[in-house]
């Protein structure tokens, strides 16, 4: 396997990883927007908005935390990997 191919493959995989991570963020943000939309709906219809706000206060942070944890891990792991790769290529 030539080095070029390995590098291209690595790049593609990295791109895929980035995409999947952003998909997770899109998912989380979509949920947040959905919940906000429902809150506005319940306010509009005067249909017990308190309940929806209460739920949103818990749900939205939970989803954001989960996405953040994933991102944090990804960045952390990748950083170290890149450091290693750099070292090995320097060697």
């Amino acid at each position: 396997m030539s080095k070029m191919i390995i590098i291209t493959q690595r790049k593609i995989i990295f791109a895929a990883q980035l995409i999947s991570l952003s998909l997770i963020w899109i998912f989380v943000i979509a949920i947040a927007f959905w919940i906000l939309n429902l809150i506005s709906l319940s306010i509009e219809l005067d249909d017990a908005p308190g309940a929806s706000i209460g739920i949103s206060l818990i749900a939205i942070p939970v989803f954001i935390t989960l996405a953040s944890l994933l991102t944090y891990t990804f960045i952390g792991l990748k950083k170290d990997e890149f450091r290693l790769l750099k070292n090995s290529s320097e060697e």
Partner: protein
Amino acid sequence: MSKEIKQNFGPDEVLYRPIYETGKGFYITVSILIAIYFWSLYMYFTQVRSGLGVTGMNQPVTWGFYIVNFVFFIGISHAGTLISAILRLSKAEWRRPITRMAEVITAIVLAIGGLHPILDLGRPDRMLNLVSAGRLQSPLLWDVTSITAYFTASTVYLYLPMIPDIAKLRDRGGKLTWFYTFLAWGWQGTEKQKKILNKVINILMIMVIPIAISVHTVISYIFSMTLQPGWHSTIFGPYFVAGAIFSGIAALLIVMIAFRRAYHFENYLKEIHFKYLSTLLLIMSLLWFYFTFSEYLTGIFGSEPHEMHIILYKFTGPFAIFFWGMVVCNFIIPVILLGISRFRTIKGILVASISVVVGMWLERLIIVVPTLANPTMPLPAGIYFPSLVEWALFIGGIAVFILGFVLFSKFFPLISIWEIEEGRKEGIKEVEERIHSYLPNT
């Protein structure tokens, strides 16, 4: 560095074997399961085509197998993440070979269970109304939210601790290296990476416990938020959570015993694991009995006529066979088999676990159907006979669960290899230190 890892998988070769060696049994199992799956899919399409009339539901029994199975499957899902999180949190050393399986159960069963309300919809094509016109005030949407959260959390919680193992598979090479590379997120096993991962896992396991508990509490709210006798009860939250953990452990035990035998994990899943887990099951059985007892005692003591009517319907009426069957399955059999050490063999534990799973399913049936079948208005009791479609979807659900598990075992190790290694390396030392820290004057 990578070379070292490769040399190190020697002692745990048996854990890799299912991934690289595919037997005839695997193909047969998978094809049978896929056949069942397609059959149930077909049945579901008949339901979509003709309407919910193909089920055995009616007025007043408006909910049947789908909701029963929904509650049941979500209950089973508590096996995993919750137990694994609790064990991790309590630093129980014997957890190491168990956590992965537990988490996999959660992820798969939750996906199946979470889809059940959709099976139950009269108009699945209008699902998106939940997005455009949803009402967060409805307990059903609490469920949607909490199950989504739990599913996300438990998948993350399954995935992150798997990264080092994926990296091992990646390094081993083979056809799917790109796939493992994609999933391994560049894990190289450096100290810094380990530190980050441990940190995140620690946060996750704390986070996952309340989410898990919330899920089953919220499911109980579906029932207890109504004014129906037999449902409108404050004890339902904890009762459901206890029941969920109870059935979850039983399911975990069954899976462990099955795969121990199928993949020869005897060295990893030792007597001690079953002993500990079965003790937990015994405790949960007693706890379950305590909850059931309180639930019915309050009903009987109050003797509110409608409440009493439903209790009698369960105790002596048409549902008596299910009710007493449930008591036998959930309490008498497990207590005898697990309480008497002579019976507490792997076989005994297997029987007890199966009986608990059956019993917990019966419990869900007993919660859902009798209340609906006995309307509080002076109407005749409703009848409910599940139709072929409902049975098909139930069997299909179980088939998908097994299929998911088998396929998972085909791509990922069922026992966390790195954690075992870590245990070998550091566990003994750590435990020793910990014990020293407990004991006075050492």
